[in-house]
């Protein structure tokens, strides 16, 4: 039986190694300067790239962060500082529910809220969808981080005459800041790879777009479109794009690990 558990672990490790290995094997050959700086070329022409998708992803994630991070941290602060009663349970429960909503359904909602009212697809709609997804992740972790700050710290501040709002912002939040930044980066890494909500909000674009009111390419979206296509060149580019995506996600995860290992109580430096 113990052997079975060991065997199960080995079986689970196989796809992990297989996926990463295959990703590197397929993607590394196609990663070149062209790929990172050029926009897609028509099929059959060489030299196209995914630059617009990378930049577009950045734009959409920026909008998502502007929406999701303040709301998430604010909710986390509320739950940690004021949320001991029934209303706090309700909010916490709702945040967990929101966490479990499938991303495609959130895409539908963002479509219905933003695309239908504006009558066109936009990076804003994509950003709204991803921002909604970030809120529960950030709020949950922020609350946990704030609860880990010792109560005596708050009491010392109150004893000195510092008002509640100032205590929370300057002292409690700052103490928990590395943990909160960790949470933000984690949620960032999670929504960076999301494709489904962008399928009919940001829609994708073959050209450069820097405006929030137009369709925008996004890296996972572009990979998905290329994967579905019948062209070998696009398949090759899809692998390269996938490699870039996983590298970006792994970088933010490593930053998360580094920040977490510095500890919560070291304060915000």
């Amino acid at each position, binding site marked *: 039986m113990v052997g079975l558990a060991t065997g199960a672990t080995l079986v689970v490790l196989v796809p992990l190694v297989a996926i990463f290995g295959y990703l590197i094997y397929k993607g590394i050959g196609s990663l070149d300067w062209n790929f990172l700086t050029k926009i897609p070329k028509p099929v059959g022409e060489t030299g196209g790239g995914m630059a617009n998708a990378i930049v577009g992803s950045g734009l959409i994630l920026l909008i998502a962060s502007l929406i999701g991070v303040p709301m998430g941290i604010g909710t986390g602060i509320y739950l940690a500082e004021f949320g001991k009663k029934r209303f706090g349970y309700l909010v916490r429960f709702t945040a967990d529910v929101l966490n*479990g909503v499938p991303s495609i359904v959130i895409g539908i909602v963002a479509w219905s809220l933003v695309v239908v009212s504006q009558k066109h697809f936009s990076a804003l709609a994509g950003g709204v969808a991803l921002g909604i997804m970030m809120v529960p992740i950030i709020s949950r972790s922020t609350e946990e981080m704030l609860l880990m700050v010792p109560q005596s710290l708050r009491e010392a501040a109150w004893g000195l005459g510092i008002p*509640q709002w100032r205590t929370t912002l300057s002292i409690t939040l700052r103490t928990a800041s590395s943990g909160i930044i960790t949470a933000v980066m984690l949620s960032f890494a999670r929504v960076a790879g999301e494709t489904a909500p962008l399928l009919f909000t940001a829609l994708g674009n073959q050209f450069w777009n820097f405006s929030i009111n137009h369709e925008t390419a996004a890296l996972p979206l572009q990979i998905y479109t290329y994967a579905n296509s019948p062209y070998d060149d696009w398949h090759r580019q899809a692998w390269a794009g996938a490699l870039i995506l996983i590298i970006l*996600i792994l970088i933010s995860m490593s930053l998360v690990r580094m920040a977490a290992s510095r500890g919560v109580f070291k304060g915000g430096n």
Partner: protein
Amino acid sequence: MLKQMNGPLLRTKVQPNPAQPASQDSPAPVPRQKIEHKSSRLADATFRYLMLVCALSVLAIVVLIVRELILSSALARHTFGLKFFVTQVWDPVSGDFGALPFIYGTLVSSLLALIMAVPLSIGVATFTTEICPPRLRSMLSYVVELLATIPSVIYGLWGMYVLVPILRQYVQPFLAKYFGWTGLFSGYQFGYSMLAAGIILAIMIIPIITSITREVMSAVPTAQREGVLAIGATRWEMIRVGVLRNARTGIMGAIILGLGRALGETIAVTLLIGNRPEIAKSLFAPGYTLASVIANEFSEATGDLYLSALVEIGLALFLITLLVNIVAQLMVWSITRGSTQRATA
């Protein structure tokens, strides 16, 4: 300065802490002394209401989700009524829509994923918490959680290039030859099938089930393990009786949480399942899930009824995952509540 602090500027409100039973979810509260300055009362109130607005926005988002889904699917709901969920036909050309093939596809692919993932996850969790040498423990859990960070589209891409050819060339002929009599492994071997979707979903939900199972297994008190060992149990018996049996509610919760994730998974499934809106017994046959049909057809839907039918499918998906997640949360909370500790120093 002391005189100033005790003067009219400072009012101390002592709030006695109502005794809360240890079974509450939040950590044990500490008696709070709310010290108010007259000058900061406005700022305090503003801050509190600002944070309240943020918290209310989470509620507002969920309300908005429900509202938009219900409103946008109104046309389809009034046209088809409840027959929508039992009709097998999905014909955009004639305007005849039914969700049964998708419900079937979603349920079967998720069930298949659970059947494959649960034993593996419990095995990995058992190995990590009970058997593994402590030095390897954090590295192993990190590696398993690494599986969770891989985006869905990369799973799909890998599935298309590695999993499907392996299925087509080796696994499907093998299964058809030895287990074809069950009827589950018959039909043409495309590779893109319910089986492929089930396998990739299993790989995707293993990290979630593993991490929560690990959490609930660690929450079982050591006294339980020691007690079982003291009456002469073997190692496996200790794990089975002392740990797994105690944690079984939490493990059920973890499984259901994994199910919730599998139900909503879109991109990897869309790329591997074959996308044919038909119900077939064989696992080799292509299928279609609720999420896949939305992903494939939403941006190309012509006509209001088509769009509305797709939104109704989204509503169905939302309600199913909502139910599953609520059940799962209740189960996981019953085991791990109170385990987050508030640091007092």
